[in-house]
């Protein structure tokens, strides 16, 4: 057809001029109901939290005030020394807690590996892992402080209790993936259960074990820097005090130091894990 494009086709049949995208919801009513509920929820939350223009305005002013108070960060010699002391305590807590935590978490990992233990034991192992994972380090910290009093001991205990949630869980997953043939071969020699674990299982997961331990140390550094907020020792205690005393210049210095140490820990841990694996 010389004159144009669509004539030939349009004359044969006509096509609809609207198209609705198929919805992921069951139908349009459900779609709008979901959107409506979402909007209602956000509005209700805003009311519940008493978000108002006044408060936002006051907050903005407060925020500007806080930022001006925080700059410049207070890095006087005295402040530096207090940060150093707190930081040493935090990092030491992380190291001690990692060693103890890994030692205690390893048997728990075996308990939580489906292929190595009977069903009831596995359930108990998984339960320990789940509880440890569910409770935040600071919740554990607050409990530990009640039990043994203020100070780094409470921090170490909290971090040790938080370790199985990460370490045992991931190690157990690796234990479940091991090559059963090697284990059977050791068992076939007449070895007892412990010997099977040492010769058939341990060599297969050793690199991963070391990697996870280093990773956990990295996580513990982050946690130990803040656990002092509930009184469990380390730089977090210093940070909370600075906020309570409105010494925001010192606060910002501490926060910057924490960022630096956390990043350093992350880089060190990444480098180290690469070396091991």
């Amino acid at each position, binding site marked *: *057809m*010389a004159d*144009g*494009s*669509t004539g*030939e*086709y*349009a004359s044969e049949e*006509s*096509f*609809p*001029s*609207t*198209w609705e*995208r*198929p919805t992921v919801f069951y139908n349009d009513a459900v779609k709008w109901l979901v959107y409506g509920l979402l909007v209602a929820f956000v509005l209700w939350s805003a009311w519940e939290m008493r978000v108002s223009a006044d408060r936002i305005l006051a907050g903005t002013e407060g925020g500007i005030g806080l930022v001006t108070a925080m700059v410049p960060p207070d890095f006087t010699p005295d402040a530096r020394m207090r940060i150093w002391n707190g930081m040493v305590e935090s990092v030491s807590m992380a190291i001690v807690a990692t060693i103890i935590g890994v030692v205690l978490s390893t048997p728990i990992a075996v308990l939580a590996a489906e292929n190595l233990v009977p069903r009831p034991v596995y359930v108990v192992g998984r339960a320990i892992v789940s509880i440890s994972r569910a409770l935040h380090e600071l919740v554990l910290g607050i409990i530990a402080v009640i039990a043994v009093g203020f100070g780094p001991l409470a921090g170490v205990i909290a971090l040790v209790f938080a370790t199985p949630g990460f370490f045992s869980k991931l190690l157990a997953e690796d234990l479940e993936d091991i090559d059963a043939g090697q284990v059977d071969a050791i068992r076939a020699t007449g070895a007892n259960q412990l010997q099977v674990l040492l010769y058939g299982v341990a060599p297969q997961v050793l690199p991963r074990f070391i990697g996870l331990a280093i990773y956990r140390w990295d996580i513990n550094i982050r946690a130990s820097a803040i656990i002092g907020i509930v009184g469990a020792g380390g730089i977090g205690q210093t940070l909370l005090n600075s906020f309570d005393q409105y010494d925001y210049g010192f606060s910002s210095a501490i926060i910057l130091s924490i960022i630096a140490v956390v990043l350093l820990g992350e880089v060190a841990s990444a480098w180290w894990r690469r070396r091991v694996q």
Partner: protein
Amino acid sequence: MLSVSELGKTYPSGERALHDVSMEVAGKEIVSIIGPSGAGKSTMIRCINRLTEPTEGSIVLDGRDVTGLSGKELQTARREMGMIFQEFNLVERLTVMENVLSGTLGYLSTWNAFRRNYQGEDVERAYEVLDRVGMAGRENARADELSGGQRQRVGIARAVLQRPKIILADEPTSALDPETSRAVMDLLTEISRDEDIPVLINIHEVELAREYAERIVGLREGEVVFEGPPEELDSDARNVIYRGAEPASPTVVAQEKTGVSISEVDKETSF
């Protein structure tokens, strides 16, 4: 009418992909660009709608120089050139209809595009074109459910929805089997005739080029070494394009020079 003059492309690395390429494409002509791998075929096509930035020369579409444009004007210029890709490049997670109608994005505000609020006329046209490319009834399928041939049909429909003044096709059949390739070439021919626009196809299979093109342009090392109707693409011309022989030198000489037997070259270029 598209007119390309003295087009050149040199990459920052110093590698020269195109040099002094000139050609015109007009009416409802089907023009094929052929040449060995790395001859600059893709660069050529992509320079025309400036997905690749040319370093020399000019591209003029219907009196407007495309090379200097930017922003809104470049978008308008791109809208007038429908592009068909080797790997189809449909948005995999969108429906066929959204892919086809994405051809009209150049005419829509982002807000309307976001709400899928297309022009009624465009939707009508989309249904019609889907029917024309043999994909009627599949408008609600997701692009990743389609076969290669079907995806290319949707790709063609998307280009047509742009109401282009020319269609550029970058190896549209390379990812398809021979039978589907022919179907796609038939479709492009039909579209060219119906829409009254030219099609510039960069193509790997010489057979397909000879069968469908009205004019063939041979590229070698970024330069035009052949231009003419398919009948003129004799063995001499092929030698020039694919082996860099001097024009009119006999096949046997080229064979001795390169030490490659005819059959191997045949396989690669599908003579």
